[in-house]
Each structure stands twice: as C-alpha cells, then as structure tokens.
C-alpha cells in the first residue's frame, strides 16, 4: 500500500523527452562539479604566490620523500596473488542469487551450494598445500 502511494506521489515524466528528463539531475551534477573545480583551480592559480624549491619540484608522493622510479617492477608474487584472487573473488558471485532464494530452495539448494563451496575449498587447500600462499 505504502509502495503504491510513493509511486503516485513521485513526479513521473511522460512524453518524448521523458528519458532525458530523468537524467537532468545528472546533468546538473556535472555542471556544478565543473564550475566548483574550475573556480577553485583558477583562484589558486591567480591568487597564490609561487616559490620554487628543490623539495617542491620533486614528484608528489603523498607527502613522503619519493623513492625510486614510478615504473619499477612488481614482484611476480603480486601477480600470483592477484590471479588467485580473481578466481576466488568472482566465483563467490554465485552466492548472491542463491542467497536471494535461499528459503525457497531449501535443503537441496543448501546441499548444492555446499558442493560448490566444497570444490572451491579443495582448490584452496591444494593451493595451500602446494605452498602458493607462502610469501617469500
């Protein structure tokens, strides 16, 4: 009941420009964002003084003194962990649709998901046993 009232109270656009009307708020966000950023950047450029020192000319690295080139190589260990992460991360996506109909599917659904997770766990155990998770 409350849901229906809410729909009625909302301004529902119709007609040719209806779709674009829905997005007018997004357009405003863009415009306001552009204006605010433009004003702030140009104001600091116009009003601020400029002083060049060796420290200021350095690459800005979150306030820490910078160390080493930005294009340094990462240890191959990172790739390994990233690869493993991709797999386990995305397979978990199947839990979401299952969670939505968890009650309706009942025990068979629980068993099926248990089988899925068991196989996933076997993969994890294999990885562990092979020593892939050891960071050296």
């Amino acid at each position, binding site marked *: 009941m409350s849901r229906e009232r809410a729909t009625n109270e909302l301004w529902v656009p119709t007609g040719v420009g209806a779709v674009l009307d829905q997005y007018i708020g997004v357009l405003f966000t863009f415009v306001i964002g552009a204006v605010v950023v433009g004003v702030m950047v140009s104001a600091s450029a116009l009003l601020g003084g400029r002083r060049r020192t060796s420290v200021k000319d350095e690459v800005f690295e979150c306030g820490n003194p910078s160390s080493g080139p930005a294009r340094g190589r990462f240890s191959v260990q990172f790739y390994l962990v990233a690869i493993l992460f991709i797999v386990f991360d995305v397979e978990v996506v199947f839990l979401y649709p299952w969670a939505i109909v968890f009650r309706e*599917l009942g025990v068979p659904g629980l068993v099926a998901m248990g089988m899925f997770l068991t196989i996933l766990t*076997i993969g994890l155990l*294999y990885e562990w046993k092979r020593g892939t998770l050891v960071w050296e």
Partner: protein
Amino acid sequence: MIPTFPAIAWPALLPILMVSGLGLLLLGAGLYTDDEETLGWGALAGLIVAGIVTLVLVGGESVRTFNGTFALDGYALFFDWLFIAAGALIVLMSMGYLGETDIEVGEYYALLMFALVGMMVMAAATDLIVIFLGLEIMSISVYILVGSWRTQPRANEAALKYFLLGAFSTGFLLYGIALIWGATGSFRLDEIAARLPLADESTLLLAGIAMLIIAFGFKVAAVPFHMWTPDVYEGAPTTVTALMAVAVKSAAFAAFIRIFLWGLAPVHADWWVVLWVLAAATMTMGNLLALAQRSVKRMLAYSSVAHAGYVLVAVTSGSADGGAAALFYLLVYMFMTVGAFGVVAAIGRAGEPLENIEDYAGLATRSPLLGATMAIFMLSLMGMPPLAGFAGKFYVFSVAVQQDFIVLAVVGVLNSVVSAAYYIRLLVAMYMTPEPAEAPALGRRPYLIASIVIAAGFTVLIGVLPALGLQVARLSFLSMQ
C-alpha cells in the same frame, strides 16, 4: 513464480561424475607422488571403469535432466565413450613421455580428466549455455595443458597463442548464443527447433548463426580460422597435441552437430552454403599447406585441418545420414590420429623433438614396429582400403552425393588424392631412404608402444568391419531427438 529445485537424474551424470572425481583424486595424489607410472595407472584404471559404466548405460533409455538442458542419450554415450577411449590412449602415451619433460605429473593427469569432463558435458548438453560451460571447462584445462611444460619457450608460446585465439572465439560463441536467444527466446535446442519455423528469419538469427560458425570454426580448426593450429600443435607437448587433434576437435564437432543438425535443422537452407564453402576451403587449404611442411608434427597438424573439412562435408548435407557419417568419421579419425601422434612422441627425445621428415629416414629398419604402425596410420589417413580411413571417407562422400552435393564430394575426392602425396612422402622416407649413420637410438617405451599398437589395431578392425561401426554411429545419432 516460486523457484523450485529441479529434479536431477543422477544416473545420467554418472560418467561425468566419475571422471570428475578421478580428476580430483589425481590432483590430490599428485601432492604426494610425482611418479608418472603410479598416477598413470590410477588414471587408466579410473578411465577403464568409467568406460565400462558408459557401455553398461548404452542399453538404457534416453534421460533428460536439469530442466531438459542435459541429456544422456545414445549420442552423448557415443561421444563419452570416444573421449574416454582417447583419454585412456593418451594417458598410456603420457606414461612413457612425461618422464622426459618437467611437467607436474599430478596436475597434468588431473587437467586431462577435467578436459575430458568438459568434452563430455559438451556432448551431453542440449542447451546452448550448457554447451558453453562444457566448452570452457574443456578449453581452460587445455590452455594449461598446452603450457604445462613451463620451462620450454616453445610450449609457452603455443599456450599463449592458443589462449588468445581461444578466448577470442569464446566471445563469438557467446555473442552467437545471445543473438539466437534474442531471435527464438530459448537456449534449449529442442525449443529452438520448435520455434524456428515460426520465427521470422531475422537479422538477429542469421548473425547469431554466423557467430556460432565462426566460434566452432576456431575450435575445429576450419579454414580460415585455422591459423593457430600448426603453431599450437607443434609447440604443445606431443601427448597434448594428440588430445587437441582428436578429443577437442571431436568435442567441438559433437556440440556443432547437435546444434546444427538438431536445433538449427529447420533453417538448413540458411546455413548450408556457408558450411559448403568452409568445408571446401578447409579440405583444400589443409592439404595444400601440409604438402609444404618439413616437420612431421606440423604436417599432421595441417592434415588434421583437412580432416575437419571432411567431417564438415558430412555436416553440410544436413541429413541424418550425414550426421551418422560424421560420427563414424570422428571415431575412425580418433584412432588413426592418436596413433600417428604417438609415433611422433616415440621418435622424439627429451629436449630434442626430432620431428622433421629426415628424422624418419630408415625408420622401418630401425624399428620395424614403429615403421609398420606409422604406415598403417598414414595409409588410413590417406583413405586406403581396407583401413578405417577409407570407410570413413567413403561414407562421408557417398552421403554428400546422395544429398546432391556432388561438387563438394568431387572436391573431397580430389583432396584425398592430393593428400596422398605427403602421406606417401613420409612412407618413402621410412621405407626407402637409408638410415642416417648417426641416427639417435630409439628409447624403450613400452607404454607408448602399447598405445600405438592398440590404436593401430582399432584402425584395422574398424576398416574390416565398417558396417558395424556405421550402425553404431547411426543409432547414436538418431537417439539425439
């Protein structure tokens, strides 16, 4: 709509569950031992049990399960048996081969089993999405298998090429599935077949069919989607090459035939022209390029391209006879090609593949058994009676003639003549060229020899009793609907 859990006919899944379980067991066992023979015997025993179970299931009636997306019919069992037999022969080959490489043995056998599972899913699937899942289970396992010899640059390169083009073709397959779904509103092949006469032949449908042809063209290595084949076949470990040449190709054809001769059969008029051109181009280019090869492994790769063309001839005809001939051809092709790659593996050394035709000089005197079996495989691939290859080609071309694809049949026969040139060149090298003075000794590899001899035995046996094989293929095909 309240979602309900679909009833599952577990017996229908038995072959697949057995091979999956075997794969997991081998993966675990691989942590504790890397003895290629122990693990190999385990894999072989498991596959033999699975093969027997499959044969027992043959008598039963067709079962559909998972909301009709998965079937255990004669068609699925035929291919299950074919994949298990190919897998067993390849395991036997690997037991004499892995020791010379630094492949992780447990993972190798486990991935081999998972690849077989994917193939079995493809053959049993009656739904486009399940076919896609099977194809990916198979492909991802095979990408790893190709690159499993990690320290060998040649294998790395082959794996990378196979992966890039395989993933590329996956995109086309999915797009084709999406468009066909858009045109018909169903993923299930029986529903697609029922709705197609009603659906207007929209751009959506035709584009979808074209995308599917491209995707399967890549997987079965049909010209012009064959560019990866020689490189990947050459770079991969020879046992994996054998797997790709026979099992991966047969699995792709299993799904291809089920889709095109069942789901899309009502619109045969729309797709046969494309397959006609593809078949003619595949046979011709495959054979002509094979003529120019010095490496025997590469020559066999092009020969496998050409043989995909012969199977496509049968598929083009669109009839039940064509389907039966294609199935029979795949069975025959499996034995002779596994055997031929087995001989290639038997001649190679660790780190020294010895794949060029000069390395085969005088093979018949160095090893009469290898020479004789290779001669059987070459003559059979060429289509010489009374070997199995002749029966396969005979049925394919006679179906083409019956269905009024006479030009295509003529192209096929001419191609068989051309192909004789390079098969005979190898025979000449083996039997009539003197053995080089410093020929490296052939190692003793009992398992490898055993698998070659078994393959040769079946090649001769099917050649002698072709009618029986064809009858099995026909019944399997007809059980599909």
